[in-house]
């Protein structure tokens, strides 16, 4: 079996979107399990940048989630959100707010994750939409380029938080 290590791809399909794709050498039901089970999330979500100290998952539509990681520098990084669509094990839609920015929920991203299984392997697409169009347009109207930069700033913050 071909190794999938280090094969995540990140692209920016639109001004307010980030798309992350990755293949896993496992069937979708297991990917879903690793992706949504608190004890398992604790083992991977912080990557190599810290330790997940809390992973709360209330997996139902309208249910909330919150992950807290203690970064290697000793500071806490927390994200939370709400589940909007749950279609086990192929599709999950949720909001994602980074608690380190002002008005985390107002700036929350909408994340759509799909898992497509083929020959026992799972192809994942994770699309983050950083602001809704109405919100973005309001900013653009008031400050021309502002809305475009908003997305980039949010991305930057996310990237910094992962450091």
């Amino acid at each position, binding site marked *: 079996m071909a190794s*999938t*290590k280090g094969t995540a791809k990140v692209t*920016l399909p639109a001004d307010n979107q980030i798309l992350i794709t*990755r293949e896993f050498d496992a069937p979708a039901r297991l990917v879903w399990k690793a992706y949504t089970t608190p004890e398992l999330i604790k*083992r*991977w979500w912080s*990557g190599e940048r810290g330790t997940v100290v809390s992973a709360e998952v209330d997996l139902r539509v309208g249910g909330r989630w919150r992950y807290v990681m203690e970064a290697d520098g000793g500071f806490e990084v927390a994200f939370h959100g709400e589940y909007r669509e749950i279609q086990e094990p192929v599709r999950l839609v949720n909001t994602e707010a980074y608690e380190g920015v002002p008005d985390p929920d107002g700036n929350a991203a909408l994340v759509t994750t799909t898992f497509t299984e083929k020959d026992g392997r799972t192809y994942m697409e994770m699309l983050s939409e950083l602001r809704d169009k109405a919100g973005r347009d309001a900013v653009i109207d008031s400050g021309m380029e502002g809305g475009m930069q908003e997305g*980039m700033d949010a991305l930057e913050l996310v990237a910094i938080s992962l450091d």
Partner: protein
Amino acid sequence: MARAATTTDAFNAVAEPRRRQILDLLAAGERPVNDIVELLGLAQPQVSKHLRVLREVDLVHVRDEGRQRMYRINAAPLKSIHDWLRKYEQAWNARFDLMDDVLDELREDELKEAEAHDGEH
């Protein structure tokens, strides 16, 4: 967080979709302004404004050829965007590589369970 002016770096410059289109056009080779205007179906002043932004962050270079202004791409400033994406990508790769370990274990557990089940029969 303070917002940078549009023209300070490549990130801001390419946040505008039209400017990305212009870069895509120039990626195929040097072109006069009129060409870009025609291909994008925009008014000349708009195109000139976008080109000025791209020039200020050094994403395009310009030279005069007779009465025409010829633009060509200079991709070097795009490296900062590429580097940023790389960093983001690496962070996600670190996560997913760990997830691979979790998945390996889950799969082994399933196999063991299936074997134990077979043993019962």
